[in-house]
C-alpha cells in the first residue's frame, strides 16, 4: 500500500509492503506529519514556533517536542562547528532538523504498529525499513540536479536514512551562517546516507552550508557517507559511498 499527500508544503509518501496492512496505518502517519507541521511551521501564524518568534510563549511553557527540537538543534550546532544554526537574526527556523526528525518518528510509528517492510519519504528525504515487494533492499535513486528525470546513482539501503540538500529546485534555501550574504553556488546537490534519516538530514543541511568542504567534513564522521555534485557536474564522494551503489548488473 502506497499513498502520497501534500503536507508541510511538500509531498509525503508512505509505502508499506507487509501483508495485511491496516487501512488506518498510513493515515496515522499523515496525521503525525500534520501535527508536526502545526507546531513547527514558520509559515503558519498559529504554530508554536511562530508564537515563540513573536515572543508570545515563554520558554517554560514550550511543549516537550519544542524543547526537544531546540535541544537537538543546539547539539547539532556544536557537532557541526556552528554551521548548523536554526537562529537567523533573532528568529528561529528549525525546519532543517524537524523534517528528518519527523520522518524518523513517523517510521518508528509504523514499527510500533508491527510493520517491518516500509519507507517514509518527505520532500526527497527517506527512512527505509526491511525490503521492497521484490524482496530486495529498497532502491533509491539520487536525482540528477541538472535533469530531474534522471538518476546519477542508484543505492540499495538496509534500515537506513538518506537525505539530499540542494539548490536546484527551490533556489537557495541553505545559507552559510559565517557568510550569510554569500550564496552557496559551488555545490548544487549533497546526498548523505546515515544510520537514520534524522542523522542524514541534519548533516546534509550543515555540510551543504560548508560549500566544497562539506564532503570532507562528512568523510570524517563515522557512519555517514556522502555524494556531492558541484555546478560543473563533477561529483566528490566519501570512501564508503560505493558500498551502497547498486552495480549495473544487479539492476532490476
Amino acid at each position, binding site marked *: 500500500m502506497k499513498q502520497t499527500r501534500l503536507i508541510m508544503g511538500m509531498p509525503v509518501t508512505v509505502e508499506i509492503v507487509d501483508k495485511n496492512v491496516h487501512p488506518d496505518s498510513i493515515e496515522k502517519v499523515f496525521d503525525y506529519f500534520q501535527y508536526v507541521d502545526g507546531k513547527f511551521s514558520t509559515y503558519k501564524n498559529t504554530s508554536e514556533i511562530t508564537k515563540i518568534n513573536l515572543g508570545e510563549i515563554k520558554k517554560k511553557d514550550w511543549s516537550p517536542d519544542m524543547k526537544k527540537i531546540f535541544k537537538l538543534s543546539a547539539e547539532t550546532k556544536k557537532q557541526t562547528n556552528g554551521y548548523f544554526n536554526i537562529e537567523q537574526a533573532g528568529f528561529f527556523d528549525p525546519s532543517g532538523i524537524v523534517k528528518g526528525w519527523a520522518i524518523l518518528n513517523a517510521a518508528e510509528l509504523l514499527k510500533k504498529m508491527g510493520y517491518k517492510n516500509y519507507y517514509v519519504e518527505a520532500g526527497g528525504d527517506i527512512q527505509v525499513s526491511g525490503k521492497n515487494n521484490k524482496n530486495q533492499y529498497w532502491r533509491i535513486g539520487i*536525482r540528477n540536479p541538472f*535533469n530531474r528525470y534522471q538518476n546519477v546513482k542508484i543505492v540499495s539501503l538496509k534500515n537506513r536514512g538518506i537525505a539530499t540538500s540542494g539548490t536546484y529546485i527551490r533556489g537557495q*534555501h541553505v545559507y552559510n551562517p559565517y557568510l550569510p550574504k554569500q550564496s552557496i553556488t559551488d555545490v548544487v546537490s549533497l546526498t548523505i546516507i546515515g544510520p537514520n534519516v534524522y542523522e542524514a538530514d541534519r548533516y546534509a543541511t550543515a555540510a551543504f552550508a560548508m560549500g566544497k568542504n562539506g564532503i570532507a567534513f562528512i568523510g570524517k564522521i563515522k557512519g555517514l557517507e556522502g555524494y556531492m555534485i558541484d555546478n560543473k557536474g*563533477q561529483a566528490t564522494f566519501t570512501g564508503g559511498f560505493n558500498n551502497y551503489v547498486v552495480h549495473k548488473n544487479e539492476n532490476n
Partner: protein
Amino acid sequence: MVNIIKKLLVSLFIIVAFVIYTSFKNENQQEIAVLPPPKNNQIIPAVPTTTSTREPVTSAPVSASTPTPAPTKPVNNGQYKDGSYTGPAADAFYGNIQVQAVISGGKITAVNFLQYPNDRETSIMINTQAMPYLQQEAIQAQSGNVNIVSGATDTSRAFIESLNSALTQAK
C-alpha cells in the same frame, strides 16, 4: 645584572613557547589518520588506517627538509621492507598531500607529512582531525528500477512547469 636575568628569562620563555608550539603542531599532524590512496601503490604499500599510525610515531618533529633517516632494526617479521618511502604528491581535493612512510621491523613506525594543505582557515580546521578519503568522478546517469528518489525538496515543480508553459504561450 637584573637586565641580564630578564633577557635570559625572556629568551627562555620564547624557546619554551616554541617547543610547545612545535610539539602541538606535530601532534596535530600525527592525528591525520586516513590517507588518500597513493597513485603508485608500490611506493607505499597499503598504508593501514587509524590505529597503526597513531601509537608508534616517533617523537621527532616532522619537516620536509629533515626526513627521518631509515631505521636499521635487525628483525623484520612484518609485511614491509624497512626504510623510508616517499609517496607522490596527491591531490586531496582541498590541496596536495605528500607523505613519507617509515618502516622499521617490517611495520610502519611513522607517517610523515611532507606536504599538506594549510592555506585556508577551513583546511586547517579539517587538517587537525583525521583526514577523510574522498574520490571524484564526472556524474553520469544510472538507469535501473528505483522505489524512491532522493533529491532536494521539489514542491515548486508544478509551479515551474506551469510557469514554463505559461511563458511558452506568452511568446
